[in-house]
């Protein structure tokens, strides 16, 4: 008989980039409106990644290695935590920890209320992907070409698996399998328990995009210009759609709606199950960030913040703030939080 000693296995998972397929950062879908004013502005360091929000604290990872916990009521820093490398990784939240990767090759877990380190886990290359959590296990890919599984309580290694290239894609962790894109151009499915490669499906170029997984479909973009929908059990291509340039953006999915940006500057919306194009809208010169799906609205950062009608793709409003190529806004019930490459963090209402 074995005793369950983990304290984290009963906690809610954070299984994919920004917590869920809609990329809400744990905020769930709800209505969002055109903001009228900034209620505060916080000056940090340049930010590439997306902020995350919980318990009235906004967590922002600066490229310079400073993690800020910002009190959203005041717009002031509650604590700061510095790591010895640059940070490009979007943080994840799990229990009382904020998890993020660093260019020093480590993933850090920091107490998100006190701002002190809980543990760190090493790899041999920079970690730009987000660490995700499922069933008490943290999964992350590294530029060293390996995918790692570590214990969420301790940071101790469970397994690692070498893939064929750099890994900048964030894992999607399902119940028994994990899915990830790789710089070698393949989409991989690994057994979550052992790390054994179950299948891999090649695309025509490297993969920077992070997958969304639902209804036995893995959706991901490739630098070969295509969006791929793969059978999650076998890796077989169910449908694919060609955009005008490479895809670094990650898909957002809600029900039968899926959206992804392309470096050709368009945001594309599909029927998730069939791949039928619903609409495509020219948003900016280039899109590399993932979109976030709100209720009837889809938002994306592409040198500014853009909001489109989910059903038609019509541009609803835009805000010339948040100059960023990778960040994602947090759409809270009454406020939009926005990070920028210039280091400004905005709360818009």
């Amino acid at each position, binding site marked *: 008989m074995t005793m369950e000693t983990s304290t984290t296995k009963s906690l809610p998972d954070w299984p994919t980039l920004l917590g869920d397929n809609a990329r809400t950062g744990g905020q769930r879908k709800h209505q969002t409106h055109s903001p009228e004013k900034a209620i505060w502005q916080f000056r940090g360091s340049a930010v590439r990644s997306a902020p995350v929000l919980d318990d009235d604290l906004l967590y922002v990872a600066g*490229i310079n290695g400073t993690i800020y916990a910002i009190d959203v009521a005041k717009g002031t820093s509650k604590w700061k935590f510095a790591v010895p490398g640059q940070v490009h990784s979007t943080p994840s939240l799990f229990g009382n920890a904020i998890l993020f990767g660093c260019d020093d090759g480590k993933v850090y877990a920091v107490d998100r209320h006190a701002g002190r380190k809980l543990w760190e886990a090493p790899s041999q290359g920079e970690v730009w992907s987000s660490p995700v959590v499922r069933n008490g296990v943290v999964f992350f890919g590294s*530029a060293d070409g390996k995918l790692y599984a570590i214990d969420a309580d301790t940071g101790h290694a469970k397994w690692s698996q070498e893939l064929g290239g750099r890994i*900048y894609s964030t894992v999607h962790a399902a119940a028994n399998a994990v899915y990830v894109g790789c*710089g070698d151009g393949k989409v991989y499915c690994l057994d979550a328990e052992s790390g054994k490669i179950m299948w891999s499906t090649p695309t025509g*170029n490297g993969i920077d995009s992070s997958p969304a997984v639902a209804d036995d479909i893995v959706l991901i973009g490739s*630098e070969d210009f295509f969006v791929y929908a793969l059978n999650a059990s076998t890796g077989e291509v169910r449908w694919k759609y060609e955009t005008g340039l490479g895809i670094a953006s990650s898909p957002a999915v809600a029900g039968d709606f899926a959206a992804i940006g392309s470096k050709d500057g368009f945001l594309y919306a599909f029927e998730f199950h069939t791949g039928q194009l619903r609409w495509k809208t020219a948003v900016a010169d*280039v899109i590399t960030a993932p979109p976030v799906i709100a209720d009837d609205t889809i938002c994306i950062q592409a040198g500014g913040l853009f909001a489109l009608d989910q059903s038609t793709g019509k541009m609803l409003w835009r805000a010339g703030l948040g100059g960023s*190529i990778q960040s994602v806004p947090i759409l809270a019930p009454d406020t939009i939080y926005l990070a920028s*490459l210039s280091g400004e963090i905005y709360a818009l209402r």
Partner: protein
Amino acid sequence: MDRRTFVKAGCIGSASLLIQGLDPGVRADTVPSITPTVELRGLADYKASPLGMPGLFPGRVIEARDRNAIVRNRISQPIVHRLLERAMTELTGESSARDAWAKFIQPNDIVGIKINPSGAPACCSSPEIIREIIAAVRSVGVPARNIVVYDRYSYEIDLGSYQALLPTGVQIVGIQDAFTSGVVGYEPSVYCDANFFGEWETRSYMASIVAHEVTKIINVPTMKDHSASGVTGALKNLAYGTFNNVARTHRAPHSFTNPLIGLMCTVEPLRSKSVLHIMDGMRLVWHGGPLTQVQDFIEQPGILMVGTDPVAMDTIELEAIEAKRREHGAPSLWQHDSSSITPDSNIFFHDATKNLFFRQPGHVAAAGKLGLGVADLKQIDHRLL
């Protein structure tokens, strides 16, 4: 005595080079009347290398071309591999690609690959070509960890997705973030000092990675026009990608890219370490460079040029872009007509008759006069494969 005068006084009697009144090669009515003094300071006691520009093969440019190397914006890795091998053996006269590369790179080198991600994703140094260069460098015994792919701005490298697309083990370095300032990442003793428009900071410092870390540089420019310098090729990719604080040399409609681009390329150790230039002409931008994303002005000729002489290479590039502009009825890069100038970058990006600056393509010939290579087309050994 102000701060800068004090610093300059401290330089007198050292290895600094003062160049005054260098012929900018442009009409007097299109530039401010006073050509500034440019003070150059190289790395102290650095011994110049015979591999330095114009390198082992002055005046020789190998142009390999295959229409199928790029189809609908997708580059063929196998074709690029073949083009590069053929071009390198033709350049060096060696029978094998490995022996060709060994003329420039030794196993103990720290090899910098200077990409041009500016303009990504529409036109930047292709990751497919960088992969081939990395493989070739490794073939002569350089471990992956001693290969550094670099450029000035991290966010532009990010836009090109180089981090995800290049092999494991190699380092990928952005010298500075988009909004950082100061001289972090730059060597304060190596600089170009000139006051072009009354700017407060008159110095541009050399990147530390060039001054101290890499021992050889493989330069991978793209084939583009440039709103200020006329073209951005081998010379400009090295100069303005190595020194900081360079945007100050343009103030619309004027630009001092000539003579500064060539002058910067003479500064040691940049000159000595830059042993090979591989121009990515998979795409050719004939208007809107360096940042355009407008596909109307981007052609896909599938060209790869190889040489050690950046002046000869840029001369060929300049001719090709001029020819393409003529073909499309666009004004010459040499045209200095005030009516063509617009302050509106959106107009510039969509109208090939407009420009933001009086372009300075004369920077290529000026670099030739500095001894960096051959600018006379008749003297260039231009071999087509």
